[in-house]
C-alpha cells in the first residue's frame, strides 16, 4: 500500500495535489475533443463552423460542468463521511439530493420557468435541499448536538418520502411533462450556457474553499466529534458550516445535472485507500479527481453508443461499482 506516514509534511501533500491538478487541467483541455462528431484541429484554429461552435458552445461548457459537478459531489461526499464518521454517508444518504430532486420535479410539474431571472428548476432544487436539510438536522438535534446515527436515519426517511412524492407527482402530470421529469431524473451532464456555468462554478469554488479551509478540523471530526471537541475544535460551528456548505455543493450540482450518484462514494474511498485519510490532501484530491472522473465518464458516454448517449451517471456506476468492490477486496480484512 502506498500510504506512508509523513508527519504532516507539506511536500507529500503538494505532490499529490499537483498530480491531480495536472489531470484536471488535462481533462479540461482534451475532453472537449472527444465526441461523436470528430473535430478537425485546423478548422477549429480557423474558427470555422460547425467545428468551432460545437467545441465552444457544446463540448467545452459540458466538460467544465462535468469537472466542477464531479468535484462538488465528490467533495461533499468526503465532507459528509468525515462529519458523520460513516463510510457510507453521501449527499444521497442524507436525503439532500432527493430533496433537490423533489424541488426540481415540482418546478417541472407546475410549469415554472423563471424566478427573478433564474431558471425555476435551480431555485426549486436549492429550496428542496434546504428544506430537507432543515428537517433532517432539526429532527436529529438533541441538546444542541447532532447525533450522526439519527441524522443518517432521518436522512434515509427523507430520501424515501421525497422519492415517493416524486412518484406521486409523476402520476399526476401530462405525458410531455413526465418525459421531461424522467429525462431530468436520469441525471446527466449537458451543455449549459456560460452565464449559468460561471454562476455555478463561482458557488462551487466558494463553498469548496470554505470546506477545505477547515481540513485540519475535518481530520478531528472524522475520528469523533468528542475527539474534536477535546482538541479545541468548535464542533457546533463546524457542524453547521459543514452541512451548509455540503448542501450548497450538492443542491447547486443537482440543479444543473439532476441526481448523479456514486461519485461522492467512490472517489473519496479510492483516494483514502491509496493516498491516505488526511483531509488536507484528501479533500483537494477528491475534488479534482471527482471532476476528472465525472467529465471522463461523460466523454465515454458520448462515444460508446454514438449517436446515442449514455448519461454520465450510468457510465460511472457501471465502471465505478465493480472497481470499488475490487479495491475494497484488495485490503486486508479487519
Amino acid at each position, binding site marked *: 500500500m502506498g500510504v506512508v*506516514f509523513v*508527519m504532516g509534511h507539506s511536500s507529500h501533500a503538494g505532490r499529490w495535489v499537483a498530480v491531480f491538478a495536472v489531470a484536471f487541467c488535462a481533462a479540461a483541455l482534451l475532453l472537449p475533443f472527444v465526441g461523436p462528431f470528430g473535430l478537425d484541429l485546423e478548422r477549429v484554429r480557423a474558427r470555422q463552423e460547425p467545428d468551432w461552435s460545437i467545441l465552444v458552445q457544446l463540448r467545452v461548457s459540458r466538460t467544465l460542468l462535468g469537472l466542477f459537478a464531479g468535484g462538488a459531489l465528490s467533495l461533499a461526499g468526503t465532507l459528509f463521511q468525515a462529519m458523520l464518521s460513516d463510510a457510507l454517508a453521501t449527499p444521497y444518504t442524507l436525503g439532500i439530493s432527493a430533496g433537490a430532486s423533489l424541488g426540481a420535479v415540482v418546478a417541472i410539474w407546475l410549469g415554472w420557468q423563471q424566478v427573478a431571472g433564474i431558471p425555476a428548476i435551480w431555485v426549486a432544487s436549492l429550496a428542496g435541499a434546504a428544506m430537507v436539510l432543515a428537517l433532517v438536522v432539526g429532527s436529529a438535534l438533541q441538546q444542541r448536538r447532532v447525533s450522526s446515527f439519527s441524522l443518517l436515519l432521518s436522512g434515509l426517511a427523507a430520501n424515501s418520502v421525497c422519492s415517493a412524492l416524486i412518484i406521486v407527482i409523476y402520476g399526476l402530470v401530462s405525458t410531455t411533462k413526465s418525459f421531461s421529469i424522467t429525462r431530468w431524473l436520469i441525471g446527466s451532464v449537458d451543455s449549459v450556457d456560460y452565464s449559468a456555468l460561471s454562476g455555478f462554478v463561482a458557488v462551487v469554488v466558494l463553498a469548496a474553499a470554505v470546506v477545505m479551509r477547515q481540513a485540519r478540523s475535518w481530520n478531528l471530526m472524522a475520528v469523533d466529534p468528542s475527539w474534536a471537541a477535546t482538541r479545541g475544535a468548535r464542533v457546533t460551528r463546524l457542524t453547521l458550516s459543514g452541512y451548509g456548505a455540503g448542501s450548497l455543493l450538492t443542491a447547486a450540482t443537482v440543479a444543473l445535472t439532476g441526481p448523479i450518484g456514486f461519485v461522492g462514494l467512490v472517489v473519496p474511498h479510492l483516494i483514502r485507500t491509496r493516498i491516505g485519510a488526511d483531509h488536507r490532501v484528501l479533500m483537494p484530491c477528491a475534488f479534482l479527481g471527482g471532476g476528472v472522473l465525472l467529465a471522463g465518464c461523460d466523454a465515454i458516454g458520448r462515444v460508446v453508443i454514438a449517436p446515442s448517449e449514455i448519461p454520465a451517471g450510468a457510465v460511472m456506476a457501471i465502471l465505478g461499482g465493480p472497481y470499488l468492490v475490487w479495491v475494497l477486496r484488495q485490503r486486508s480484512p479487519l
Partner: protein
Amino acid sequence: MSIRLQIVDVAWHVNGRPVLSSVSLDIREREVAVVMGRNGAGKSTLLDIVAGLRQPTGGDVRLNDRPAAAWDPRDRARLVAHLPQAVRPDLPFLAGELVLMGRYPHTDRWFESDEDRLAVERAMRRTDCWDLRDRLVQTLSGGERQRVLLAACFAQAPQLLLLDEPSTHLDIDQQLHCFSLLREESARGAACLAVTHDLNLALTYATRLIVLAQGRVALDVPVEEAVRAPDWLALFSPRLSLCTTPSGRPWVSYS
C-alpha cells in the same frame, strides 16, 4: 505552571434518573487521582463533564478559578487532554496521524512544524508505539491502539490529563508502564484524573483514591489513608481484603 480543577456540586440527570448528584472534588498539580466505582457509578460521566463533553445538569466545573465553559476551546485543549474509553476501530488514519492531532490546539499552521513532529515522536516513544507510526489504526491490536491514544494525549502537552480506563487492553507490563507515566506527568507538575477498575494499580501508583457510589463521592482520601483504613473495599465486593506483600506493599486479594 499550576493547575487547579474544582468540581462543585456537580449533578447529571438522565430522564430524571440521577447518575451523579452533588459531586465535589478539588484537584491540583502533582496529584494522580484515581476514580473508582462499580459499573454505572458515573465515573465516565464525571470525566466527560470535566472534559466539557456534557453539560452538567447542576453545579460548576472550574479550571484555574475560571468556569470551564468560559474557556476558549483551544486554550482549554492546551490545558486539558482527554483519553476516551475507545475510538471507532475502523479509523482510516495512520497511528502517527492520530497522535499528530494532539498538536491541533498548539498551532495555526496548515501543516505542523518540526517542533510538533518532535513532540509526536517523543510522545510515541514514551508509550512504546513509535514503531507503529506508519500502521493504519484499524490494523492495530487493542493494546497497541490504547498506547497510540495515550501518546495522542501526551502530544497535547496538557496540565490536566483525564483518562478513562487508560490501562484497558494493555498487557501487565504495559499497564505498569502506563501508570508510571502518569506518575512522571505528575512529577513534572501536571495533574491526572484517571478512571480504573484495577484496585492494585490504584494503590501502587495513585496519590489519591476517589470512590463513586450511587452517584456520590463515597470516599476521597490520600492513598496512605486508604491503606490504613480499608473498610471502603466493601463498596466493591464483600469478598475483598487488604493484605501486605512480602516486600511490604499493600495488596488487594479476593477470597
